[in-house]
Structure formats: C-alpha cells, structure tokens
C-alpha cells in the first residue's frame, strides 16, 4: 500500500491522536513507533499499517519513509529527537511537520532552512496546540493590524475531577517548568526566573488560573516573523490548575523529573522514564473531562488607533478521544496542518512556522469540525 502520511511516534499519545484523525479523515497512514501493542485498535483500520522505527537510527528511518511512498511525515516523537527526524526526512526527500521544539531546539532546527529549501521541501515547526493553533490565531490577529507592539499568549486548562492526570508529555513539562524562560522585551530576548509566578487570570471556560512564565518557542518565531511589524514584546504563560501544578512541582522537587540514572538491582534506570511509566500506569478517573483554553492577545495599531485583539481556542474532551482529554488540540492540529499541506493549501518551502503559511480560515474551519472553537474578541468565528 502506498501511504499518504507517515506518523513517527504513532504509539505515543499525540501520535495516536494524529493517526486516528488522519485515518478518520480517509487517508492511508503508516504508523511508526516502538510499541505496537499500544495502538492495536488503530491498526484494525484498513488504511493503517505499522512499522517498527527507532528514530535514533536515521538511515533506517529514512528507508522506512521512502518505502512508504508518503511525501509528508508527522513527527510526534520527543522533541529532543527532532533533528534526527529532520535528517531522515531530508534524506528521504519528504516534507516534515512537528509539535514544537521549545526555544533551544527550534533555533537548531532553523539551521536546516537552506537544505530543505534546496530540495523544495517544507519543515513546519510547532504544529500542535501551542505552538500551533496559537500561531495561526496570532497570524489571524496580526493580519488585521498595521503594526504590532506586544503579544501575550499561553494556555490554561482544568478538569471536572480534581485528580492528577498527566496533562501532556512529562519530559516537556519538566523542561518547561525547570528552564529559565526567555521573553522578548523592548525588542530584546531576556531570561527570567524559572517558572516564575505571574499572577491570576480568568480564562473562558476554564475559570481563574494561576499562571507561570515558561519557556516556549513562540517567543522566538513571533520575533522572527513579526519584528518587521514593530513587535517589541512577547510573553508566554502557562496556567495549570492548582491540583495539577502541586503534583508536578512535587515530582520535580523530589528529583523525579531528572534525566539522571539510578541503579536498581544491577540495572541503570533513567529517572524520567520511571516517572513517565508510573504516571502512565494510573487510570484516568471515570467520567474525567478536561477543558483547555489556548489564548493570544495581540496589541498593536490599526489606522493609527490602538487595538487589542484577543483570540482563544477552546477544546474539551471529545467523544471517542476520552483517552486524550483536551490534548486532542495538539494531535489533531498537526493532522489538520498535514492535510492542508497534502491538499496544497500550504505552499511554503524551507524551515518555517505556522504563522507564516497556514491558511487561518481553512484551519479554523477544520478545528470547528472537531469541536474546537475559536473566539476573536469574545465572538466565535468558526
């Protein structure tokens, strides 16, 4: 079977969501990963097939991609392996989308811009919820302004049952909560204190949330693409419900987010791997539901007047995707962008981000089909 897409990391949560969305949209998908057992249900689909891939082996990854016949790869593996997958895609001559690389990895990824441009291939960085939906919403808002001064953005979420469920990849959470965030202030990147408390905010559907300044790639890409519009400031904040933040903080404080190894009965165990597996072994409470608000506030000028545009995307736990909670906005978003690329609605080449090339209206329309609703200054627009 010739495939339309290859999903790397298809056995992880986001890979599963993206694969399910692609398959339900009628595409042929090669699901790649290391633990076939986790996706046995998805593999019952007639358009799905599995291949064992360890992306640490770049040559073999490229070989699997070439043999699939697909021209688009969705990279849903851990972000520290993004460069490996990009190299495999370059070798295989295919387009690449990923879920983001935070600031550090994103900067490394841009170094491949010429290589991909030469081959007329696209690398679309940060195609999840944030980065991803947030970037397209920003593009939509910035497009309405003559100049942009400042962008604040972030996310907040909560659940109906106040029990701890890991909200997204523990590796990403640990990185975000332990790395000094970089903000753009007065046109310059500045480091601030790790995960510093920024106060309380009231978010649509989520309610009051404590927000914390964390590291995220949008600060870098917004500066790259909107500085010619006068952008001087970008701040990124994350909102966690108190019950979740407390647990995450405890895990980190007690060393359970560490990448160090611990010796157990003659085996070396990576601590973060242990933490991930223990957390994964917890069952979600019955009838557990989440709601997430990804938001962007763009402050600028139009026709000489000050103007603020607030964009929000609301995601709730979706029937059939209960395993994913509000995380569907990450896996589904990369699936939508991949489909837009497949259908030639995205036409860029080189390494870029969604705010430069993803058509806003078409993207929002697809979000709406999946019950993710976008608001512009309190008015639903999709």
């Amino acid at each position, binding site marked *: 079977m010739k495939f339309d897409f290859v999903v790397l990391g298809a056995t992880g949560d986001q890979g599963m969501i993206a694969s399910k969305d692609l398959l339900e949209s009628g595409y042929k998908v090669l699901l790649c990963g290391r633990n076939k057992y986790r996706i046995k249900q998805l593999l019952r689909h007639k358009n799905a097939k599995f291949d064992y891939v360890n992306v640490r082996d770049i040559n073999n990854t490229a070989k699997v991609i070439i043999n699939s016949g697909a021209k688009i790869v969705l990279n849903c593996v851990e972000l520290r392996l993004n460069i490996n997958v990009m190299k495999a895609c370059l070798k295989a001559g295919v387009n690449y989308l990923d879920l983001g690389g935070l600031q550090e990895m994103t900067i490394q990824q841009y170094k491949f811009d010429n290589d991909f441009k030469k081959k007329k291939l696209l690398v679309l960085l940060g195609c999840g919820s944030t980065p991803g939906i947030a970037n397209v919403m920003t593009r939509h808002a910035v497009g309405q302004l003559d100049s942009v001064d400042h962008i604040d953005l972030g996310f907040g979420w909560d659940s109906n049952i106040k029990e*701890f469920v890991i909200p997204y990849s523990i590796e990403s959470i640990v990185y975000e909560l332990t790395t000094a965030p970089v903000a753009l202030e007065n046109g310059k990147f500045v480091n601030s204190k790790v995960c510093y408390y920024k106060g309380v905010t009231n978010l649509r559907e989520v309610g009051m949330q404590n927000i914390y300044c964390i590291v995220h790639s949008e600060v870098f890409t917004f500066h790259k693409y909107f500085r010619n519009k006068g952008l001087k400031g970008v701040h990124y904040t994350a909102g966690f419900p108190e019950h979740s933040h407390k647990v995450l903080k405890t895990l980190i404080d*007690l*060393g359970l987010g*560490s990448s*160090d190894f*611990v010796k*157990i009965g003659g085996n070396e165990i990576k601590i973060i791997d242990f933490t991930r*597996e*223990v957390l994964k*072994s917890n069952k979600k409470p019955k009838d557990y539901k989440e709601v997430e608000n990804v938001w962007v506030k763009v402050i600028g000028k139009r026709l000489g007047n000050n103007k603020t545009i607030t964009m929000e995307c609301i995601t709730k736990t979706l029937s059939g995707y209960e395993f994913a909670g509000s995380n569907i906005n990450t896996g589904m978003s990369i699936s939508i962008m991949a489909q837009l690329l497949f259908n030639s609605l995205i036409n860029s080449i080189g390494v870029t981000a969604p705010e430069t090339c993803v058509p806003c209206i078409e993207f929002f329309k697809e979000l709406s089909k999946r019950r993710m609703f976008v608001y512009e200054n309190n008015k639903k627009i999709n």
Partner: protein
Amino acid sequence: MIGIIGLGAIGRIIASDLHKFYNGKVVYIVRDKSSVNNLAKKFNAEVRFGDVNDPDSLVNAFKNLKVVIHAVHHEYNIAVMKACLKADCNYIDLGGLYHFTKKQLKLFNRFKKKNLLAIIGMGASPGITNVMASYGSRFFKEINNIQFLIGSEDFSTYKKESPLTNLYSIQTIIEEFSWKPAVFVDGKTIFVEPISGREEYKFPSPVGSKKPQFTIHSEIATIPYNLKSKNVSFKIAFDDSFVDKILTLKRIGFTVDKDIKIKDNKVNIMDTLVNILKKLPRPIPKKLNQYEIIRVIISGFDYYGYDKQVILDARIESINETVNKDTGVPPSIVSQMIVNNLINKSGVFPPELIINDKLFFDELFKRNIFIFCNDRRIN
C-alpha cells in the same frame, strides 16, 4: 568486641557513641570498606567486609565478636540474626516494623539453645519506648491502654534545605506510609488505614501541637502481650508539608510494592522511588537545633483499684547534633551492657522484658536524654 553492621546515618551515631563511652574494640562491617576508612581511623575501629545479601560474608565478619549491632534495613533482620547464630554472637537491632518483629521472635529457641541473646527493637522507638512502658507498667495492677506518641520540632537554621527532610530512613517512612498500621484494640490486633488517625495533639513545649498518625511499628507486636494491656497504639507526627509530599507520591502510584516495566527492565516501584529519594541533596545545616518528645501514656487501675494515668516522656534536645541520636545511642548502651555481663539471659527479647530501666535511663542521662514521669524528671 562489638560489631556494627551498616554505617549509614544511624550506624555512624552508634559508632560515635561507642567511641565516647566504650573502651573495648569496635568493628565496622560494611560492603565498601573505603566508605568508612576515615571514620575507622578517627575512632580507631577495625573494618571488615560484610554484605547482608551474602550470609557467608556475615559469618566471617562476625568472628570473635561478642555482640553485633544491626543497623542496616529491617528486611535483613532475619538474615543477620541467622549469621549471628552461626558465628556465635549476640544480636541487637533497631526494630522490625511489626511484621519482621513477629518473625524474629520465632527464633527464640535457636538463640536460647546456643546460649545467645538477641534484643530486637533497641533504638528510640522501638527501644526507649518499650523500656519507658515497662517502667510505667509497675504502677498498675491492670493496664487498659498504652499510647505511644512521638513529636518533634526542628529549630535548626540551614545553609541549604533539602526538598524532603526525613528524620530517619526514607525507606522506612515510605513503608510506614504504605503498610497498614497495627493497633491493639480490646485484646485484638486490627489493621487500620495508613496515615489514619491524624489528629492534633499538644506535646509539651517546645514541640507543641502536632498531628500524629497511626503507623506500623514493632511495639504493637510485643507490648500488649508482655505488659498485658488491652489497648495499645502507636502514633508519630510528621510535618504537614512532608506528609503532603509523601501523600502526593502515594496518590499517583509511586509507593506501591509492585513491578513495572521500564524499557527492557522490570523494577519495583517502591524500591525505585526510595533509591531516587535517597539521591536528593541532604540539608546543609548552619546550626542544628532539634527537639523530640517520645511520650508513653499508660492508663488503667492501680493496686488500690483506682483509675490511674502515668505519662512518661523522653525529651531529647539536640543542639549541634540530630535528634537521631536517640536511635543510635540505645544500641550502643545495650551492647555495652551485654559486653559487661549486665544482661545474662538467652533467647530473643524485646527491650521491655530484658533491659534494666534504671541502668538504661542513667546511661541516657549521660547523653542528655531525659526521662520524665508525670512531668518529674527521673534520670
């Protein structure tokens, strides 16, 4: 000769106490000899190799020792006792968290037959608690209730605090928070939920109000039978923030005693957690100043048939040292009693049946551990 197996935090306190109060030879038994070379040099002790997982190595290490103080974890109690039987030496440990204690008592005849003595649970609690209960029991014709309560307060200043300030072995604490505590009620042992019974209790100053909780402990395995009390309970208080952290780990599955697959390896979740927590940086004190109160409340009828209540406190003020000294000091004292032939029985005994309270309290006094009976100091 007195041997100490295990030179961790408590083992080192025992070593220090023996250095101060014992003139005979002391032998340190460890897996990694280099880890105690400096200490041995400082305290003029001999170092021998011994691994609790390798019984033969223990028998070799115990040669010619009069008594072995076992300061490794309680899961090795039986193995070390058996090595003592083979090596013909007496044995002392720091407790068996109820379940191990029950098993250890079954070795009574084997120790008796070899004319050897094992004293089990000879730290602070169990240990000082048992001797205090035994002392207090003399005022009663009939005992209705014995309550053990422990509270402490840390007034130290730190250069650097630790994310988890555990006063004793983190493995023991995790087990205490996970295993169902035994409580002796109306003549029967029942098991209640871990961390239950957490209610405010006012200890004397400077400890003040704390929230002690039921905890699995060795005292319940022996005291009800030896002191003939109808009810016996044990509670210990931890800081709210400490309890909160351990409870968080418990709620999200990190304290269960079962295996999990991590890539190609299977590991026990609780063991792995303990190993990770052991790697946390220790606090760096500027000035240590800790205070602990070990309280035993006995109620019942006196010899005239009147209601009676006796409150015994061990008050441990630790300036420039940790309150853990109350766990390290008793085995040192009792090992010296054995060496000096002040205890001459054979078999396996908990402290309440074998320790002369007067001699023991006098020795505690020398270490600034003061015993009070109904608020009157008795040592």
